[in-house]
């Protein structure tokens, strides 16, 4: 449905009031997903109002997409139906925070930056440093399942999300977990929400454990003539007693983007004393440029670490020595004031890539560390064969973000992207890895999943030629449909973003 249905808009207005409903075409267009525009936008002011709308959608069999700040809408398959946009940003309170217990309960529509500004008053933080950081909501960060450079030391959301409240597909308010750091009461349903892209439930509230904010931190950068040498240093670090906060390897072309560009999203500091961006309560400003730490045309390994002065000294000493042993061509230690300019860019890598090319196609590749070297060689070779510029970052223990960056989006480049994508999927699969297509031009996504170019219901059964491509691989054998089973348990009427994941 691409035009507004006046009846639908007035029905939703009757539920939550006209002031909370947008039906104007231009307003609705802001909520378009892969060129599909909703018929109506609802902005509930409470979880109960949101539940009203979900119950209405369930009765009328209308398709609904929940929203935070709309920063990661390009992740996922094009929806097969889309009627109602449910904007959750009016649910933006922090109903519970116990600094002494390091636990937090926050409404889904609250921005991560606001949460962290609040936590920082108690020298704590939530290690959810997702891209579009100054805008992203907590609910969107969880639903998108996007990680952050800090996963190296704090893990992903599944390691610190301790409970959730959400609306299931029947319009009932449900919960799982709790507000305690250790809990085995009932099924861990909240874990299923991570990366579910809104397909299981409308998240209304999330409970987290919080962490002490690093008092003092440093950055480390080493340059290398080859990816192999950078990976050798990565391995030395992982096998040492060191436990850095972040550990990322940048390809030469990505390092160049970092050196030349500034992310368009405004910057806010995460930790106190990050002078690069001013204190967290000040007005957001642009991220300052990075220093001349990178040697041009080389691979870069970037690590951050934190602790007392003697700990910082130990890290600096050991990292520099390991780097020398791995044939680094240069190394640098970055202090509190300069480190954020680089880590802000690491966090904002996706927005920077998407700004660099309107047809940027970004894959997430999960693989065992032992396969990193051969897979890096494979994906770069594939990019060369289709003659598309590429950039990549190897994050933490074995996640590669690989981007192909055509100068423009047209049929010809889409065909080359599709060819590269299927080869990347094959190469990854051959070494036991998994490929997820995160960002792609709308035309590319369906062409990858179904041979006939349509968004195929065959996705549900995973029997397409590219069954390892999974936007939506619900992690199961081809003859089993555990994902769809779970989807219908949460959403029996299939109203939550049909087609997006399942």
């Amino acid at each position: 449905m691409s035009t507004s249905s006046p009846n639908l808009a007035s029905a939703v207005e009757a539920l939550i009031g006209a002031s909370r409903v947008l039906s104007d075409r231009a307003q609705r267009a802001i909520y378009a997903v892969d060129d599909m525009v909703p018929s109506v936008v609802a902005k509930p002011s409470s979880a109960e109002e949101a539940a009203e709308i979900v119950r209405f959608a369930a009765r009328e069999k209308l398709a609904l997409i929940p929203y935070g700040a709309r920063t990661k809408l390009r992740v996922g398959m094009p929806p097969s139906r889309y009627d109602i946009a449910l904007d959750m940003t009016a649910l933006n309170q922090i109903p519970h925070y116990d600094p002494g217990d390091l636990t937090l309960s926050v409404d889904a529509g609250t921005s991560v930056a606001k949460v962290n500004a609040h936590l920082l008053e108690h020298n704590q933080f939530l290690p959810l440093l997702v891209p579009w950081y100054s805008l992203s909501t907590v609910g969107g960060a969880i639903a998108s399942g996007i990680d952050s450079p800090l996963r190296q030391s704090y893990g992903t959301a599944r390691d610190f999300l301790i409970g959730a409240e959400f609306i299931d597909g029947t319009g009932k308010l449900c919960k799982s977990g709790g507000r305690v750091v250790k809990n085995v009461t009932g099924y861990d349903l909240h874990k299923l929400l991570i990366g579910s892209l809104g397909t299981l439930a409308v998240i209304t509230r999330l409970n987290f454990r919080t962490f002490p904010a690093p008092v003092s931190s440093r950055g480390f950068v080493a340059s290398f003539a080859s990816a192999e040498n950078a990976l050798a240093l990565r391995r030395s670090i992982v096998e040492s007693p060191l436990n850095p906060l972040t550990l990322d390897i940048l390809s030469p072309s990505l390092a160049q983007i970092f050196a030349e560009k500034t992310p368009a999203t405004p910057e806010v500091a995460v930790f106190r004393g990050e002078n690069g961006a001013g204190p967290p309560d000040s007005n957001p400003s642009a991220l300052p440029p990075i220093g001349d730490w990178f040697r041009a045309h080389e691979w870069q390994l970037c690590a951050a670490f934190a602790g007392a002065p003697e700990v910082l000294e130990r890290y600096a000493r050991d990292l520099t020595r390991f780097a020398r042993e791995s044939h680094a061509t240069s190394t640098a230690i970055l202090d509190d004031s300069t480190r954020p300019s680089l880590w802000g860019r690491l966090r904002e890598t996706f927005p920077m890539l998407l700004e660099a090319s309107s047809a940027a196609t970004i894959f997430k590749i999960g693989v065992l560390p032992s396969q990193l070297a051969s897979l890096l060689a494979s994906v770069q070779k594939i990019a060369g064969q289709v003659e598309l510029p590429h950039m990549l970052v190897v994050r933490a223990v074995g996640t590669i973000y690989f981007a192909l960056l055509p100068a423009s989006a047209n049929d010809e480049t889409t065909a080359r992207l599709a060819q590269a994508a299927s080869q990347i999927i094959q190469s990854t699969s051959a070494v036991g890895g998994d490929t997820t297509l995160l960002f792609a031009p709308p035309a590319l996504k369906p062409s990858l999943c179904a041979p006939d170019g349509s968004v195929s219901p065959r996705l549900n059964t995973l029997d397409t030629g590219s069954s390892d491509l999974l936007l939506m691989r619900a992690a199961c054998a081809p003859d089993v449909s555990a994902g769809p089973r779970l989807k219908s348990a949460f959403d029996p009427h299939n109203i939550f973003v049909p087609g997006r994941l399942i």
Partner: protein
Amino acid sequence: MYSGLIREFEDLLGPSSVLYRPEDLLLYEYDGSIEKGRPNVVVFPTTTEHVSRIVKLSAEHHFPIVGRGAGTGLSGGALARTGGVMLVFARMNRIFELDVENQRATVQPGVVNYELTRAAEAHGLYFAPDPSSWKSCTIGGNVAENAGGPHTLAYGVTTNHVTALEVVLPDGEVLRVGSTHGDAPGYDLTGLFVGSEGTLALVTEITVKLSRKPEAVKTLLAIFESVDDAADTVVDITARAITPAACEMLDGWTLRAVEDYIHAGFPTDSAAVLLIEVEGLAETVAAQAAAITEVCHAHRAREVRLARDNAERNLLWKGRKNAFGALGRLAPSNYVLDGVIPRSKLPQALRRIRQIGDQYGFQIGNIFHAGDGNLHPIVLFDPRDKKQFERALQAAAEIIRHCVEIGGALTGEHGVGMEKSELMPLLFSDADFALMRRVHDAFNPDSSLNPGKIFPLSKGCGEIRVRHSSSSRLRVD
């Protein structure tokens, strides 16, 4: 009525892998809890194919199935509440792969927790979850219950260390979820299955992360003249955002019992001790130990001892891990509770437990994972004295209710099982149960797998109910 099935099992597994005589079954009607439930047949598969066949045969005969590791569970999770077929995974105990470079191990569910750490130790690696029963409990059981342990304070519970599973569904279908690398796309089914207490699927293969042994470890024993001071110390350590690897509390009554038995070096004239461990870089550990010592003294610790060597450290931990056994010498039976609370509420929770003990006439000991608010009050009782037993259950229910009242949950690491199914409405609404039930039915539609666990047996929820179920021990009156 099981004779046909028994023959089929014997054909599949051989006669030595099938038990059905009453005297043989007796051992399997208990676990580490105070619950009971006798299976009709016990089988010992060695392969996934066996498990799948057993499940299919049982389904043909409409018999319920329950999986069991070492039977050390503390909530009745591995008991045959409604009889039927029990699959004991003890003989599925192979370590398929120990991948040192990638820090992964792939194991069968019957591998004993400690055996995996022993196998990995030579490479400087270990399996982090360490329940007190680690020398006998199995990794399959750890996965089913999402087991914890003292060191999960810093390193997380079982679910944080599992990256992939192979499971058998109640219709015999074999399913693989997750990925070895731990970053599988799609719904986090691994996260759902871990801790589902054997009610969704039988786990037949597990891939876990192995952790790197720390460079330095320091073990501190802080001795207090009052339980309140010890509890305040824990609150303060947490509030100052110091995260030790472990932070355990033993109250004076408990540690005297332990000391008589283990001779771990606990001071028998104190009111409480904290056993605190810090791990990591030598530089970090030194600073953390100093900061913790300072906090202890700020709360009137009589003494803070630093274990001099590994022998002393091991002895202290032996005292902690064998404490429940030590208490077994004091009464015919003991009931180890498991509740979890916000850590800032620790002092008030301990005071309330003492009150409840006084009210019901029990000396209730406390030996628990203080650092993550995971309480383990222990009620000693004589099960032959029916009235006393009934009072013990009432006291237990009241303690758990208090945990919920102050923002906690029913169980931190032992699971709901049979023990707490009737208490679930304290936390969950009709809508919550309806969704959990639909998720349950998506995998286990006929409740043939581990029936009578987690979900309340009684109908209707929301209101706290009175004594519905005669087969359930804990309830809220």
